[in-house]
């Protein structure tokens, strides 16, 4: 029987929405996550620096600073519970000019005030030892041992799967077109496809579109600017070029870009920062690509850009106030904003989830439920299993012995597993985000046809004509080969 209403509808299945949903799944409540696109982690959460910030950037006393440090502290345990890639590699903010040392010291002081542990300034020689490829111009650096790197796709999928395992429902391709509050005080969300969802509370975690949702219920306008950041991703052959996340100390000349290893073993360089009008425009630009290359050279020498395997851009949900907007909206009871979640939003996301779920809990008077399962089984990473462990996998399911993606060494078994999860992969990018097939040096040139076939075998109702890169409208093939040309006449 269809429920008349949900206790909570979370709009947006990015990392904030999924973290909130997972925290809400601890309580006795019916929770639905609505996502406009075809999978979790399709917006801001999918294309960013993949950094777990230590927490010295945000101004003391801000919500950003508090949730950054809290979120950072949650990562080690969360990554064990939910089994997603996270490494506390530490970060360095590199100072290139003795004259700027006071700025670096100010950063250290701010970090200390924010409660960031272990911060200290390392001098030239120690810095060289820690990071042999650091620029020859580097004078000193701020060392933050709690800085880390994570797999944002892995985090988001882990949160979503664990939420689903604890009873949260997910609905994809479900874009909210309008919101009304009815006479009973229930929120009615009309979807673009004509459907309707009725809910007691709404969590607005709609990323760059969160202002549009907010402004449907409140006369106090919110503005979110899409701030685009371009990145270059280098092959795993370049992954050890730096060992920590290397930031540039911001100067009058600008903010610089970071150079960091990733949990997938690649080297990531970026981002640029351009405010753009079109909130879905994740294109890259020649200027942006050049800028990333030039700026990286300020802090790290000889970055082997020849090993670049892809360029991409992501959109940060930037508010002019530069502060997270979290809380029940004035005059809209039960409508809770979780907006303006820009950097350090990924780091803060576990703490954001706790905070937002707490607000909803208090509004609805939710009680913890019995049987909440806090852990989730991650995906197999064949680079991290021993031969004996691999053989045990093959014994259980022989498809773990058939490699499909040669560049990232991903087996058929992992791809099937990605499709069988709830919520599972339904597109090639969905597979990529879960088990990394097609994200290696050949970028799917060899394996994408096979990945498409496996998706067709695993996803109910899917066929080769409909399997897509990232949801409807991004189908890979347009028809069968060896078919007559429409109209029967050759062109020419």
């Amino acid at each position, binding site marked *: 029987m269809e429920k008349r209403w949900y206790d909570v509808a979370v709009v947006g299945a990015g990392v904030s929405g999924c973290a909130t949903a997972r925290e809400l799944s601890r309580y006795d409540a019916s929770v639905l996550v609505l996502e406009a696109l075809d999978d979790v982690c399709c917006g801001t959460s999918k294309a960013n620096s993949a950094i777990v910030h230590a927490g010295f950037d945000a101004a003391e006393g801000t919500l950003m600073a508090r949730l950054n440090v809290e979120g950072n502290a949650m990562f080690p345990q969360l990554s064990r519970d939910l089994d997603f890639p996270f490494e506390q590699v530490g970060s360095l903010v590199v100072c290139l000019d003795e004259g700027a040392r006071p700025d670096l010291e100010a950063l250290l002081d701010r970090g200390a005030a924010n409660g960031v542990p272990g911060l200290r300034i390392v001098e030239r020689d120690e810095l060289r030892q820690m990071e042999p490829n650091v620029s020859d111009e580097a004078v000193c650096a701020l060392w933050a041992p709690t800085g880390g790197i994570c797999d944002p796709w892995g985090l988001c999928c882990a949160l979503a799967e664990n939420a689903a395992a604890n009873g949260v429902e997910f609905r994809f391709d479900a874009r909210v077109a309008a919101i009304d509050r009815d006479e009973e005080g229930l929120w009615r969300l009309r979807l673009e496809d004509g459907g309707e969802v009725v809910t007691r509370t709404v969590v607005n975690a709609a990323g760059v579109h969160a202002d549009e949702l907010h402004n449907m219920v409140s006369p106090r306008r919110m503005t979110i600017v899409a701030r685009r950041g371009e990145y270059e991703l280098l092959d795993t052959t370049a992954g050890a070029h730096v060992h920590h996340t290397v930031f540039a100390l911001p100067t009058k000349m600008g903010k610089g870009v970071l150079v960091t290893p990733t949990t997938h073993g690649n080297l990531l360089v970026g981002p640029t920062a351009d405010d753009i009008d079109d909130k879905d425009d994740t294109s890259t*630009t020649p200027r*942006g690509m050049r800028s990333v290359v030039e700026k990286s050279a300020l802090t790290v020498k000889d970055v082997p850009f020849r090993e670049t395997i892809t*360029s991409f851009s992501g959109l940060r949900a930037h508010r002019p106030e530069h502060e997270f907007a979290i809380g029940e909206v004035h005059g809209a009871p039960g409508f809770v904003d979780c907006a303006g979640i820009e950097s350090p939003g990924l780091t803060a996301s576990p703490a954001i989830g706790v905070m937002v779920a707490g607000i909803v809990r208090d509004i609805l008077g939710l009680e913890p439920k019995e049987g909440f399962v806090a852990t989730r089984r991650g995906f197999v990473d064949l680079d991290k299993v021993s031969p004996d462990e691999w053989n045990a996998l*093959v014994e259980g399911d022989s498809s773990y012995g058939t490699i499909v993606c040669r560049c990232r060494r991903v087996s058929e078994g992992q791809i099937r597993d990605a499709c069988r999860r709830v919520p599972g992969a339904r597109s090639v990018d969905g597979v990529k985000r879960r088990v990394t097939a097609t994200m290696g040096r050949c970028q799917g040139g060899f394996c994408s*046809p096979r990945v498409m076939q496996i998706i067709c075998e695993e996803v109910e109702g899917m066929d080769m004509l409909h399997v897509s890169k990232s949801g409807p409208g991004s189908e*890979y093939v347009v028809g069968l080969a060896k*078919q007559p040309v429409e109209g029967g006449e050759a062109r020419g």
Partner: protein
Amino acid sequence: MASAERHDVVVIGGGSAGLAAAVAAHDAGAGDVLVLEREGQLGGILNQCIHNGFGLHTFKEELTGPEYAARYVAQATERKITHLLRTTVLDVSADRVVTAVNAERGVFRIEAGAVVLAMGCRERPRGALGIAGTRPAGVYTAGCAQRLVNIDGYLPGREVVVLGSGDIGLIMARRLTLEGAHVACVAELMPYSGGLKRNIVQCLDDFGIPLYLSHTVVGVEGRGRVKAVTIARVDEALRPIPGTERRYECDTLLLSVGLLPENELSRQAGVELSPVTRGPVVDESLQTSVPGIFACGNVLHVHDLVDYVSEEAAVAGRSAAAWALGGGRAAASDAMPTEHELVCGEGVRYTVPAHLSPQRMGERLTLRFRVSGVYQDCHLSVYAGERRIVHRRKQVVAPGEMQEVVLRRDQLQGLHGGEKIRVLLEEA
């Protein structure tokens, strides 16, 4: 893991190179040759090359790719050469222990008397080119599109722009036209084509598909699927010239922008790689810097014609057999062998092999290389020390066509230890 099994010669890759190497190794006396192939059938990339034009040199007739492969598969079958399919090699060690995985056996190890690397090459993806714009579906490497059409039976798009005039791109321009798609143009960054002349004629000219030299793609539009591609002319430094942009509404961008030898395993084994070819540095027997590990085909350097792959691979197979049967030593020679480095002079980008020993090389040695630009009316010259031993007139040479020169051992007599062999182009 069970203890390792042992084979005289283990060939990694069951494509054109691997099969020819395995057959030659067997014929040279290696009784126990094993081919490891990651796909579900032997033949490698030839299986999706359903056009004809293969085998003119080897078999004196025009075969399709699958037909050419089938000839070698038959030769391997006749010789009862063993092979494992759907088997991926995970590691090759310097002491020639091969670790592989498949669904039947899980992870297993093989000790090899000699190893032949024949893993082939991969296509350079979009990311390596830094093409700006969106990242929608509909951007394919030519080989990926070829697989979808020829093996899987799907049409990847209806309105197509091709970037790069490598042979696969040219072949696919024709194939997609035959399948009912419209190919708007082929854009080539360089002022010359990267493909064979015959492919330009048969795949583009015969179908009225324009080839724009000194052009590149500067933008891709489309959210879900490609909606348009913009190309522009480039200057001599290969930078796009503002104002020369042309926008094509299309649903597909096909990339044929270079092939890269797949040497991840070679690197793990500690094999020295050439920065130019990105393949192993080899001697006259096609032995890499790691003793007992040999390389041939596209993993060594990217070829244009499969016939030459087969020929080269046979050398590697024979050398591997000799090594394995000799108990881990190269074929014996009476004199202390001298080593001579091959040096690239004017117009020559690389040579395979990169060094040789006249005492070990046999009566003849085929030297293969590519030139760095289009040269008209020139001479291919080889100097042994100060002595010019080859001086062959060529009407035209181009980077898209691999060159070869056969050296005779007697030409190299009298070379002193340390003297170099120089290969270059000279004005007529």
